[in-house]
């Protein structure tokens, strides 16, 4: 009986051992290669002067950031790697998500966020691709009120334009909330979370956090596998010299977060000796990259904001 059980498991484990993420993807035209846990090299500590400029920058950077670009890539290869042994609480499916977003603030108090999301699901009986494009405008219909209007296009459907928020607006207190990009809050929080902060050879401040968690996850068919979850966060800040101020400060140039789950062992059942893999296999990952800009975006043509066509 035990032999028969083993025979069932062998094809799965052999397949597992034969796959590596870098040269494997069930999704057509998937040429995304994550940066992964490769981070900048910190080569020295910050001087006390540099620390001062860094802290000063946290108080000033939001006045200069006019845009933020972000991209997220997610892959799950649970169907390919586990088949019917899919982990409990997970779907037996390979999934891919590519998300990009660009937010810009214009001089005439308009903020436009443009998002694109493409999602794919794949297994023996499902092969689905969906796409969604979203625009969101924040603008001031009157000097004392704001409005957020959104346009959503799913696949080949027509755009649905709705107003998703309105309210009173006071420039002195509400500008950052409505038109800002929260660069300082993000930078402050990520630097506080960093285990390593220092300078690289290009005089870029680098903050890094590395966290690993090992666990045994339960699969269908009363089986188990040893896994390791790795997450890496990296924030890079470069010296920025504003045109209107002689004091430069450090501005986040990029924030990147990478998370992955690796399978460290072959699939095993209760009372079976665990066999560890020589080369652990990445079964899912997520990578997000955020970049800030200080470009002057000029004025936005508010006449191009579409009219609401749905409630």
């Amino acid at each position: 009986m035990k032999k028969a059980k083993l025979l069932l498991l062998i094809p799965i484990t052999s397949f597992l051992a034969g796959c590596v993420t870098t040269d494997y993807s069930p999704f057509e035209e998937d040429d995304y290669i994550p940066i992964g846990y490769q981070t900048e090299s910190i080569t020295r500590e910050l001087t006390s002067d540099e620390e001062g400029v860094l802290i000063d920058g946290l108080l000033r950077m939001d006045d200069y950031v006019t845009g933020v670009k972000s991209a997220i890539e997610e892959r799950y290869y649970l169907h390919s790697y586990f088949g019917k042994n899919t982990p409990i609480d997970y779907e037996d499916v390979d999934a891919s998500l590519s998300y990009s977003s660009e937010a810009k603030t214009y001089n005439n108090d308009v903020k436009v966020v443009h998002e694109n999301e493409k999602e794919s699901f794949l297994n023996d009986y499902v092969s689905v691709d969906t796409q969604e494009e979203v625009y969101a405008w924040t603008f001031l219909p009157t000097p004392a009120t704001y409005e957020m209007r959104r346009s959503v296009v799913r696949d080949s459907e027509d755009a649905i334009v709705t107003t998703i928020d309105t309210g009173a607006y006071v420039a002195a207190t509400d500008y950052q909330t409505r038109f800002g990009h929260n660069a300082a809050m993000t930078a402050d929080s990520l630097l506080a979370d960093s285990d390593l902060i220092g300078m690289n050879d290009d005089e870029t401040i680098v903050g890094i956090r590395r966290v690993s968690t090992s666990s045994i996850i339960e699969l269908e068919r009363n089986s188990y596998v040893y896994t390791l979850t790795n997450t890496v966060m990296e924030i890079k800040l470069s010296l920025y010299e504003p045109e209107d101020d002689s004091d430069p400060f450090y501005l986040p140039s990029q924030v990147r977060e990478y998370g992955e789950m690796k399978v460290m062992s072959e699939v095993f059942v209760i009372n079976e000796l665990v066999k560890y893999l020589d080369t652990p296999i990445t079964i899912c990952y997520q990578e997000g990259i955020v970049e800030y800009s200080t470009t002057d975006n000029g004025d936005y043509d508010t006449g191009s904001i579409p009219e609401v066509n749905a409630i």
Partner: protein
Amino acid sequence: MNRKMLLLPLLSFFVVGCNGQNAPFTDDQYKPKGMAPTHKIVEVLPSEEEDIFDSTVEESDAYLTAATITSESRFYGKKVFPSHSSVESFDERNSQSNTFTRYENRVSVFKNKEFASRVYEGTLIKKESKEDTYNVLNESEDEIAITTDVTSFDGENHIETNTISYDPLFDYETYFQTNITDFVLLVASGGMIGLTKDKMIAMQDMETSTTPPDAPYIAGDGVGFIVETNSMFEAYFAKRVDNETEEEYYHLASFRLYTEYLVLSEEIPNMANESIVYLTKPVLLGYEETILTTKLTSNGNFVTSTIPQPTEI
């Protein structure tokens, strides 16, 4: 004896070379001496020598004109467990050197240097620092100029000079003497003591401990391994005759402290009754080695014009 002399270099080359400990730091030329003592104890310490040792060694620091301490440590937590590494796993190198030199012209120089490098999965963190101190006593021996030349881990260099009052009775040991022997005696107490073939007093000890199966060394992915810790120290004291009093004394000649960590097993099985598989050849996980050497001969005069000038603020 000649045969032994031939074998020693060959053996140390082979053993060290097999550990592969230069990787992952490509420019790492350091090869530790390891667990084998440099000299063998061949004779019980005669009580007459013991008396000389006990009555003179604690004051013998005064005879030392120079002392050098090098400390090297390596940790290969990532390299040794390629299948069990996480993003928190790293390899690490730390190299430190501390030197003390006393010159004839009322100058002493202390130099400290540290280099640390840590390699994560995809991250290299390098750090280097140094601190040099130059003590120059004036002719009337009532003032001492202390120049410190510090380059910290942030790369900034700062030099400053302070001149303070000096009292030969109380301050000599602080500025013109290495005070290392007490520390060595403290570390070396409790081991074996005897005479070497060259009539040096030797203090030596070796210890081994192994992680129990229920409290193993944990690799990056949470899997346990049996790891053995081996440590040893050796201290040698040479006999000299005081030029003025013509009395014999013992002084610290050299000292070495070595600790190594060896992985002894494959992964500890997930089942309690399953046997642990022990490796036929243990794998070096890391080591720490500190070597101290001393000198009694004159260092001549120090060229004080080479002392760096204070940084302008």
